[in-house]
């Protein structure tokens, strides 16, 4: 059979597939008539077969290039990304993340770096009055003192705006913490340490001032969620960096891919915690609720976090069964 004849025979099918693909603009399969999808798949398979046989058909090079492009386009329309499924993400966050974090030394390292810096700088700021001004600059310390010199109730309040701002700012820091794990974890360590130092200094310094009561009343409620969220983000970042360092016999690239996949749900959990903390910070911390309520919220959230880390993802039925054995 001559090439022209064969082309004349097949070209109609290719053209039809091309038309279907162009009409398929909406990028969504749902809502397309089912006969059309079936017809498209049929045409796609026949175009695939033509491409496979292109060599033995002696098709000229332009025709083969045409077929490559046509098949590639059809392939991308028929095989689609699965998008977001809320259930799988929720299962990851509540099931896989706590299990992974329990067995993950990076969580411990992140917590040690962050809390270590926090406690050391807090102690320094408490014992040496100038420490805060040296580390953070005099303006910032003055600003902090000024902020808490008046009672919380008398402040001009905009809870929703502040909650939004805290989401933007704090969760942004968390994501940076994760992303800088790509610098072999060094960027993450730096961010954890610098944030720990800053917060610790502010806490320690405020303790030496007469405004401690108001300050602690403001920071208590959301502290558990926020300070845990940044440690989670740090753990995710360190996991990414550790994947680059210890490749476990894989190529460094495959190792990075594996750890990135593992760390992504953790940063998701961290962002969730940051959002929770931001809403507490905006609506509860700045309110004039009695200190007891705020402390109660802090204790409850801390207990929730402990329960999440200790119990999340455990299957109790199976655990009992093994104990009976």
């Amino acid at each position, binding site marked *: 059979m*001559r*090439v*022209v004849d064969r*082309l004349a025979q097949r*070209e109609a099918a290719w053209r039809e597939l*091309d038309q279907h693909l*162009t009409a398929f603009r909406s*990028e969504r399969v749902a809502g397309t008539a089912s006969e059309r999808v079936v017809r498209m798949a049929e045409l796609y*398979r026949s175009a*695939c077969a033509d*491409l*496979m046989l292109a*060599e*033995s058909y002696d098709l*000229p*090079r*332009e025709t083969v290039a*045409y*077929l*490559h*492009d*046509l*098949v*590639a*386009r059809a*392939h*991308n329309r028929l*095989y*689609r*990304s*699965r*998008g*977001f*499924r809320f259930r799988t*993400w929720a299962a990851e966050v509540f099931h896989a993340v706590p299990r992974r974090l329990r067995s993950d030394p990076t969580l411990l390292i992140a917590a040690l770096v962050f809390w270590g810096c926090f406690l050391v700088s807090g102690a320094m700021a408490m014992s040496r009055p100038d420490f805060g001004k040296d580390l953070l600059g005099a303006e910032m310390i003055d600003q902090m003192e000024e902020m808490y010199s008046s009672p919380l109730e008398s402040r001009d309040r*905009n*809870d*929703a*705006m*502040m*909650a*939004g*701002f805290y*989401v*933007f700012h704090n*969760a*942004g820091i968390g*994501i*940076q913490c*994760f*992303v800088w794990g*790509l*610098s072999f974890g060094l960027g993450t360590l730096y961010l954890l340490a610098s944030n720990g130092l800053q917060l610790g200094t502010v806490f320690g310094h405020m303790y030496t001032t007469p405004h401690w009561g108001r300050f602690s009343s403001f920071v208590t409620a959301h502290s558990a969620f926020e300070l845990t969220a940044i440690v989670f983000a740090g753990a995710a970042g360190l996991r990414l960096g550790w994947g680059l360092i210890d490749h476990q016999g894989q190529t460094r*690239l495959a190792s*990075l*891919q594996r750890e*990135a996949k593992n760390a*992504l749900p953790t*940063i998701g959990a961290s962002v969730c915690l940051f959002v929770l903390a931001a809403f507490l910070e*905006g609506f509860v911390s700045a309110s004039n609720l009695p200190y007891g309520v705020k402390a109660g919220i802090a204790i409850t959230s801390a207990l929730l976090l402990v329960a999440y880390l200790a119990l999340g993802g455990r299957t109790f039925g199976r655990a009992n069964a093994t104990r009976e054995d």
Partner: protein
Amino acid sequence: MTESVSRMATATLASSQSPLDTSVRLVTPERITFLYPLAGPFHRACSYLIDFAVIAAFLIAGSIASVAFSVMGEWSLGLMFVIWFIVYFFYGGFCEALFNGRTVGKLALGLRVVSTEGVPITGAQAVLRNLLWAFDGVWPFAYLPAIVCMVLTKRFQRLGDLAAGTMVIVERRPIGAKVVRPDNKLADRVLPLLPASPPAGPELSRALSDYVKCRKRFAAGRTEELGEHLARPFRKRYDLPREFTADAILCALYRRIYLGD
């Protein structure tokens, strides 16, 4: 003699088998191997500029809307920050997960993100590669990590692509599959002297089709010089007189094989 022709053509095929090219070879579930052209840094920079404009438009629109709503209550300013956060970090991830690997900029330029196995990306891959943009496109280094990484990798992947196992491809809309008809008056006179089905394997056929595609770009003397190598064995074999140029012989062969003249 035929052997010498086909051996010559095989050599050209061997050199073009794995071309030094910016495309990637994929095998589909249908067991078909096809080529994807990869998107280079310039394509991707353009699409990023468009996306950047879209993000900026979103941010500005969000700000204006929240200021407008703020007459109803100041809560809307908080909404603005939340919108900023979502758009800034998750615009690309959401778009690519929902629209099968495309953001607005990629749609405009006909690019698409696929995983390195050629299958569509998952939501997690989309989010991951876009979160890591915060490192790739980090301001103090002015996108250097992304650019250096793209230049160094075979598939033009930036760090986010490497971590998520994705690549960006160009999706071309093909123009047509017509077979060209070479115009050479002398070829009409060569045709009756050729056998009904000349002994031509796939390599020779492809060499002929390549020659016909490119012959318009060369001067007459140059086409002779190039075509003579392929035409000489045929000239000897079918006793073609010298008056037929190499170009005429090759065009005639092409028409016999492809068009059946």
